[in-house]
């Protein structure tokens, strides 16, 4: 052996390498547990629910009898809620994010607001349900309507949208704002023509992920009383409604096996919708990233 390498401490190196391998395995185990649990869940649901995944599920209203029972009103209710929630929460959430990042002074008050928003993002959803019940259902007398539900959900997802949009906006380099201002742009021109186009993929990704969170939420809507048996489609904003997770919850709490299967098939539909939404978030992000 060449004298250069003689002082190598073989024992110590062997120990270090062993530690390396052990840690590596530990991380693999950690990842596998998550993946396996998800796989088990999906397989279990597919086994229970696939047989019920038939046109009836989409075209029929729920009924007391499992045979022929569907979740048409729940699917439509979820979609209606999404349609109301999306523009409202987009405008409010992205607007607040732009204000906080671009307009608000960097002072103690702003930091206080910031802290509050981050905290709100972690508040249990049932609390939003109580707020919605007080504010929209009672105070604004919207009753147990589609509108009250959508507004409550908007409150729930707003902090998530604000925080993620802020992060996207903050990631736009200052030099890009400078370039715009140096050409004589006003604040709004800079925000609308430079900052937003540069951050839109991040903003949209956050919005879609927030929407998929809302689609899967049950608690706040239970609170405001969407927990009813609905066998019609809402025709106005003031109509009562139900959504997919509530329908699933309804079915699962019934004793008969057939309803358990129905619940499983409902979960498949909900999961598919979530998957589509998350996938479209990825597509959107890639599309804007590739463009330039």
């Amino acid at each position, binding site marked *: 052996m060449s004298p250069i390498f003689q002082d190598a401490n073989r024992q110590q190196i062997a120990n270090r390498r062993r530690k390396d391998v052990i840690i590596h395995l530990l991380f693999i185990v950690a990842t596998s547990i998550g993946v396996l649990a998800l796989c088990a869940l999906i397989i279990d649901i597919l086994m229970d629910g696939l047989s019920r995944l038939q046109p009836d599920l989409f075209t029929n209203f729920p009924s007391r009898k499992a045979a022929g029972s569907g979740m048409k009103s729940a699917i439509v209710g979820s979609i209606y809620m999404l349609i109301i929630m999306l523009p409202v929460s987009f405008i409010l959430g992205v607007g607040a994010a732009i204000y906080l990042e671009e307009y608000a*002074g*960097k002072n103690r008050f702003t930091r206080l607001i910031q802290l509050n928003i981050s905290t709100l993002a972690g508040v249990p959803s049932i609390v939003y349900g109580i707020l919605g019940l007080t504010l929209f259902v009672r105070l604004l007398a919207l009753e147990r309507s589609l509108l009250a539900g959508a507004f409550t959900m908007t409150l729930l997802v707003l902090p998530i949208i604000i925080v993620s949009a802020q992060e996207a906006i903050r990631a736009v380099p200052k030099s*890009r704002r*400078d*370039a715009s201002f140096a050409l*004589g*742009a006003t604040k709004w021109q800079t925000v609308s023509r430079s900052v937003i186009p540069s951050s839109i993929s991040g903003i949209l990704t956050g919005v879609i992920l927030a929407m998929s969170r809302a689609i899967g939420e049950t608690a706040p809507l239970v609170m405001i009383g969407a927990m009813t048996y609905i066998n019609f489609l809402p025709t106005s904003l003031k109509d009562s409604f139900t959504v997919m997770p509530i329908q699933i919850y309804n079915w699962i709490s019934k004793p008969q096996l057939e309803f358990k299967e129905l619940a499983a098939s409902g979960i498949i539909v909900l999961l598919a919708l979530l998957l589509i939404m998350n996938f479209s978030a990825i597509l959107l992000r890639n599309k804007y990233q590739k463009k*330039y």
Partner: protein
Amino acid sequence: MATATQVQAQPLISIEKLNLFYGSFHALKDVSLTIPEKAITAFIGPSGCGKSTLLRTLNRMNDMIPGTRIEGSIAIGGTELYSNEVDVETLRKKVGMVFQQPNPFPKSIYDNIAYGPRLHGTRSKQQLDEIVETSLKSAVLWDEVKDHLKRSAFSLSGGQQQRLCIARALAVNPDILLMDEATSALDPISTLKIEELAQELKDRYTIVMVTHNMHQAARVSNQTVFFLNGEVVEFSDTEKLFSNPTDQRTEDYISGRFG
């Protein structure tokens, strides 16, 4: 090469007893100087000497830094920049700026150039096409990009991006062009191209450049201003400042004894 002839041009920018504070930090101290029209004026000096700060008062980019306070007079063509007569959008249209790092927008080459004119209300496609072409020609970039104007500005090399940024600044038809260490992020060949471009542009524009590189100041500028600790130590024709400086500190700096 800087010409040996005296700078004959009219002073376009005049600065008198200008003081600038960032909070409690006194960044510019009693700065007085004039900058001639259609010539290149270089600001040199060590880091933190205030040269970039002064440059950024010329298009009021310092306004955006909270806690900035300005005293004294800074005027272009006799009009005070910090008076009510001047709106900052028009000022920045008249006084273009190129930054240290090339900072194109994540848009096409065409849309980068058209960004400025669109801000100021040019909508017609034909007019924009014309502006894009003449601006890119002025920045000697047209021949390299004319066949792919729709391509992303990020597909260009660093040197090309910086010339694109110059073209973008020229597209709003400025009188003055500020270059804030515009070549410090570029390789020597790209730097040379920008310097040649500056030489060409000075017939039509008044150029003020900040540079860390004394040789660059000596190569391209007509007039040089030497800053130290927020003060103007010396300003004169470039020839004279580099061959026969009057202040000992200038001599120490240009001979490499500090900085």
